[in-house]
């Protein structure tokens, strides 16, 4: 179990990580979602020991790691650029840590070979041990980088945007692979990413980082369905966020007054998921338990199993409507056509002026 307590780090007075505390359990896949500049790479570098924190401590199984140099921490760090040694073969790269580590290196050539071959097999590169790292593909390089770290049996493996440099096809395959490799070895992964889909799909738990602070730590399901703050809702990239103010039980967004979920007052942001919005037929009124907003159609995007429709509201904001083709056929709208977008008010999340979610009575889960 790894604990971070009150970690802070600033670069030239600019805070990168602010008073961050976090517990990482054994044998878990933890994803860390943050936009660029949120301090996610800094956090990894602090944990790995490549940077020193200004304040705070890092404990691993009760031992204080903070004063230790990187090579004595027993953690693994998979660099975003893979950072393979260009003058060594795949085998030599993977063997590097075992052979050259300051603590307890493996001298016996047979044992070394066995361990390296085992891990190469796990990542599916058994045949490539003798290749130079310049002679393998990007996806293979990533596996070598992963194998090189995992073979040293780190207690926590830190991955800095491990899928960032892969093309979409490979990215999807590696998503499954990473989870399989992790559960086979039972090692804890701390996976940093800027991609919300990746963070949601891969993590047992996920952390959302914003301007150096952890703004939500929960299961992907929890983060997705009940974002703690409006920033989280923004990073999940599945919510329409309307700003305005509450007056007399209605949410005023521009000229429109939207119905509010019961028991909510003082909302400053009114948030509804892309797939909870539907486009009404011309002339139809929103149902009694719903709310509606007029918007102009801009474009649609066919995604295979679903269609995204983009509308522009009266305040210039973009509203997305996501329709799954299993429930509805794609519809063609005229460009500039004005339609009413409607949703069930039970689907609405409200956030106060400071961005915190306003707790709602549990009527929400009724559907």
């Amino acid at each position, binding site marked *: 179990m790894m604990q971070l307590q009150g970690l802070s780090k600033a670069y030239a007075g600019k805070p990168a990580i602010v008073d961050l505390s976090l517990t990482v359990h054994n044998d878990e896949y933890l994803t860390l979602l943050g936009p660029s500049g949120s301090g996610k790479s800094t956090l990894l570098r602090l944990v*790995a*020991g*490549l940077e020193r924190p200004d304040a705070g401590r890092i404990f691993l199984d009760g031992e204080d790691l903070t004063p230790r*140099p*990187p*090579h*004595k921490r027993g*953690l*693994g*760090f998979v*660099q*975003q*650029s893979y*950072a393979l*040694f*260009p*003058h060594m073969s795949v085998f030599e790269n993977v063997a*590097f*840590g075992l052979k*050259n*580590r*300051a*603590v307890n*290196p493996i001298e016996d050539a047979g044992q070394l070979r066995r361990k390296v071959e085992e891990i190469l097999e796990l990542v599916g590169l058994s045949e490539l041990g003798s290749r130079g790292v310049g002679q393998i593909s990007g996806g293979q390089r990533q596996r070598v980088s992963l194998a*090189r*770290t995992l073979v*040293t049996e780190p207690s926590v493996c830190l991955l800095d945007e491990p899928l960032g440099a892969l093309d979409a096809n490979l990215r999807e395959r590696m998503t499954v692979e990473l989870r399989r490799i992790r559960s086979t070895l039972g090692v804890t992964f701390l996976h940093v990413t800027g991609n919300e889909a990746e963070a949601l799909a891969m993590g047992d738990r996920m952390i959302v980082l914003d301007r150096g602070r952890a703004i939500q730590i929960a299961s992907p399901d929890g983060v997705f369905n009940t974002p703690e703050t409006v920033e989280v809702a923004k990073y999940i990239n599945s919510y329409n966020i309307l700003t305005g103010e509450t007056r007399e039980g209605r949410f005023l967004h521009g000229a429109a007054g939207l119905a509010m979920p019961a028991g909510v007052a003082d909302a400053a942001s009114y948030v509804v998921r892309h797939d909870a919005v539907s486009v009404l037929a011309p002339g139809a009124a929103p149902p009694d338990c719903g709310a509606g907003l007029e918007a102009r159609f801009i474009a649609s995007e066919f995604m295979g199993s679903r269609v995204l429709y983009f509308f522009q509201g009266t305040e210039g904001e973009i509203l997305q409507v996501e329709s799954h083709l299993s429930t509805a056929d794609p519809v063609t709208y005229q460009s500039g056509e004005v339609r009413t977008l409607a949703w069930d008010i039970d689907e609405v999340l409200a956030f106060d002026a400071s961005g915190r979610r306003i707790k709602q009575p549990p009527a929400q889960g009724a559907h």
Partner: protein
Amino acid sequence: MEQAAPSVEAPRDTAAPVKERFFTRNKHFLLLAPGVLWMVLFLIIPLAMMVYVSFWTQTTFAIKPELTTKSWETFFSSDTYLGALVRTLRLWLTVLAITFIIGYPTALFIGQFVRNKTVQTVLLVACVIPFWTSFLIRVLAWRPMLGKEGAINIVLSDLGIISTPIESLLFTELSVVIGMVQIYVVFMVGPIAFMLARIDDALIESARDLGASAWTIFRKVIFPLSLPGVIVGAIFVSVMVLGEFATASALSGRKVNLLGNIILTQVGSLKWAFAAVAGVILTIVMAVVITGLLRVVNLRREL
């Protein structure tokens, strides 16, 4: 109709463009021509001439194009000339070793420890500042430094470290080595610093993270990756030191004769055949040295 059209045009198509295609196809050779011409005129022909002349017959005042191996026999049976060859090789190895020992740490500092690119450039330019004065002045400036009443002896005796001046500082092989190292060390620093600065920090961080100590990282990652720089530096230094004559004569009082000095004196006394022999030998030595150095790393792959 559509099918007939190409066959009508076909003969015209093949006749005219053949000539044109020959030029298009071989245009790149045209680009090569000036370079090749230059190299043939000023490298290949002179080299061949040098080998040819080394077999000419040399008399005291004349040289005749009658082939003989006499000059070669003289060279290899004379202690003076063989001694010069051995001395050249010894001096070359000494200077090469010292420039590496001084140059590598300097380059390591500039390439790895200085994080700011501008400061790196400033430091590298600072290494070149001595070149703003002429070569001969730089060499001769060592005389008042190393001499019997030179700066070093004065400082040492004033400090009470020595009572009588050290005479072996000047006009010895030592002074030649000192002079050459000072002049050529920068050619070692430059290429190495360049290679070191190109090493991705992520590699060193990864090595640290994998548990390697600083010394292991240097041995297994940093040094191997800087090796192409070392080889390029070594080639620069070797080529210049092996052909040296000015530093040797200026700082040894003509006591240390290198192959370069021999060529100079032989040419001065119009012994062309003999100078050619020394020249051929020097060329062969350089070729062997460069080939050997290039064997160490595959420069084409590394750079």
